[in-house]
């Protein structure tokens, strides 16, 4: 999250920048001006980046929308780019992406929020010094290592237990759930920390237990931050590629059970990219456009939530 827009109270624009009062040399004034523009340019690189990504991915993927039509692309149920005639329907992958994200959130958000509440309200400094680094470390584990673990440990475990291949939604949910925990936990902890201490003390003073304070006072106060955390966790989950790729089985269909192979937008791109040519490749870039659009929606959602609910602070 970008820091809150609290401006640093600063003195009036520096006299070195006002050309009327000649307390500094013209060269210093020009230098300061130049530097200001230089820094602004650096900041605009971020904007440039987003525009470039939008442009280049868009240009590569747009032809598929012209060929197949946006509606048919998004709702088509058959993904068979190498068949004759080729079919480019990505609905099964959209379904896969959203369902695996939803399950991961259902499993991961409570775990993350619980850990965050624990860290912020219950843990003694000694315990905190173990748990918080653990959460930060978990955030640093590369997704390919999670996938590796999922492939070699989780999948066989699920396969043995269910008599299936072990690949599919259940594996995806479990791996993805643990991957979103650090994102959601860190942001939730920040949100809880920013609730002023006086609120807590008032609650305890009225005789509330710790749990009552938490769920009646703290969580509601921090709810904007918590919702933001969850939305960002959703964004992380839907954009995840490598870990999911290694455990879900990669069949471009809607799964008929918890242990049936399926595919997501991200994984289908990787699986196909190594050999795709022509229209097939364009279609993959088209899927990237869809992903880009979805991630922007999440960013907008966070801002919307802050605007709708944040005004009460």
């Amino acid at each position, binding site marked *: 999250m970008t820091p809150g*827009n609290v401006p640093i109270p600063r003195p009036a624009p520096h006299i070195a920048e006002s050309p009327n009062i000649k307390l500094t040399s013209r060269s210093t004034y020009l230098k300061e001006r130049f530097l200001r523009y230089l820094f602004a340019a650096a900041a605009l690189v*971020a904007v440039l980046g987003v525009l470039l990504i939008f442009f280049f991915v868009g240009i590569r993927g747009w032809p598929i929308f012209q060929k197949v039509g946006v509606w048919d692309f998004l709702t088509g149920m058959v993904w068979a780019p190498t068949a004759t005639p080729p079919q480019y329907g990505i609905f099964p992958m959209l379904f896969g992406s959203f369902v695996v994200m939803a399950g991961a959130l259902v499993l991961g958000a409570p775990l993350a929020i619980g850990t965050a509440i624990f860290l912020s309200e219950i843990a003694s400094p000694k315990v905190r010094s173990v748990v918080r680094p653990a959460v930060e470390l978990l955030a640093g584990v590369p997704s390919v290592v999670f996938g590796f*673990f999922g492939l070699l440990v989780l999948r066989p475990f699920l396969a043995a237990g269910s008599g299936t291949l072990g690949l599919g939604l259940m594996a995806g949910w479990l791996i993805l759930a643990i991957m979103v925990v650090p994102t959601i936990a860190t942001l939730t902890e920040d949100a809880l920390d920013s609730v002023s201490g006086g609120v807590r003390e008032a609650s305890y003073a009225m005789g509330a237990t710790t749990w*009552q304070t938490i769920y009646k006072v703290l969580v509601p106060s921090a709810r904007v931050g918590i919702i933001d955390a969850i939305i960002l966790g959703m964004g992380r989950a839907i954009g995840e590629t490598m870990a999911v790729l290694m455990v879900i089985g990669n069949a471009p269909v809607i799964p008929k059970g918890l242990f049936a192979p399926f595919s997501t937008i991200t994984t289908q*791109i990787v699986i196909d990219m190594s050999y795709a040519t022509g229209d097939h490749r364009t279609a993959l870039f088209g899927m990237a456009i869809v992903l880009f659009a979805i991630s922007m929606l999440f960013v907008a959602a966070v801002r919307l939530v802050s605007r709708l609910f944040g005004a009460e602070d």
Partner: protein
Amino acid sequence: MAPKARTVSNTLAMTLLWTSAIVTVGVLFALIAYVFINGIAQISLDFIFGYPRGLHAEGGIWPTIVASVYVTGLAMLIVTPIGILAAVYLSEYARQGRMVKAIRFAADSLAAIPSIVLGLFGLALFVEALGIGFSVLSGALALAFLMLPIVMRTTEEAIRAVPRYIRWGSYGLGATKWQTVSRVVLPAAAPRVLTGLILATGRAVGETAVVIYTMGTMINTPVTPLDPGRSMTVHLYLLSTEGINLQAAYGTALLLMVMILGFNLTARLIVRRSRRLSE
């Protein structure tokens, strides 16, 4: 609520909360233990400094280590000045207005973009359109975009954490804006800025989807930035999906985790040291 019910619900809640924390920490330890136990047998000087031989990459993984370090280092070189100057602008120079809003939205968007989209973007722009081809440079440029929002955010927070009176003292002495920023504010914020850079680098080292489409999958020890290479993460991915040489996969995973743990601990140490100094 009756007092007894309150205590019961409290105890139940405490148990659940403790359980969450234990599960989270437990999974991390399980992961580290699994990689460590299986990978430690593989680690040897030959593994670290040797080259892959034979059909299934027996031998060492030195080219992948070089590739990972090279591409991440170059990315850091590219993103550090841009990210820090951008953050300086946002916190010291900018007036709240439409441009600042646009920049913040862009930074948030950049942070939210899935890494596979960044990878395909890198492929489309750097590898193909600009013709740089699969190379360390293409990878570093793509990674720089990945790291930029992280560096911007952490640097801005570091700058804002510098107490205001320090700035006023500087202005009071007649220093210009730039003199204040460069000689007073940035040095004061340096430990936190450095921590942010290290964390961003740690994130970049763990990336797979971005580098596989920009630096490529060829086993090669890159010398110039235009050389292709295979990063440790890509190597781990390819080894584990092929499934024949799992020993090398464990070893690669372990070295990767050691690197990332190293980054994390270093960042932590810097913050702790700086806190001690400022007290």
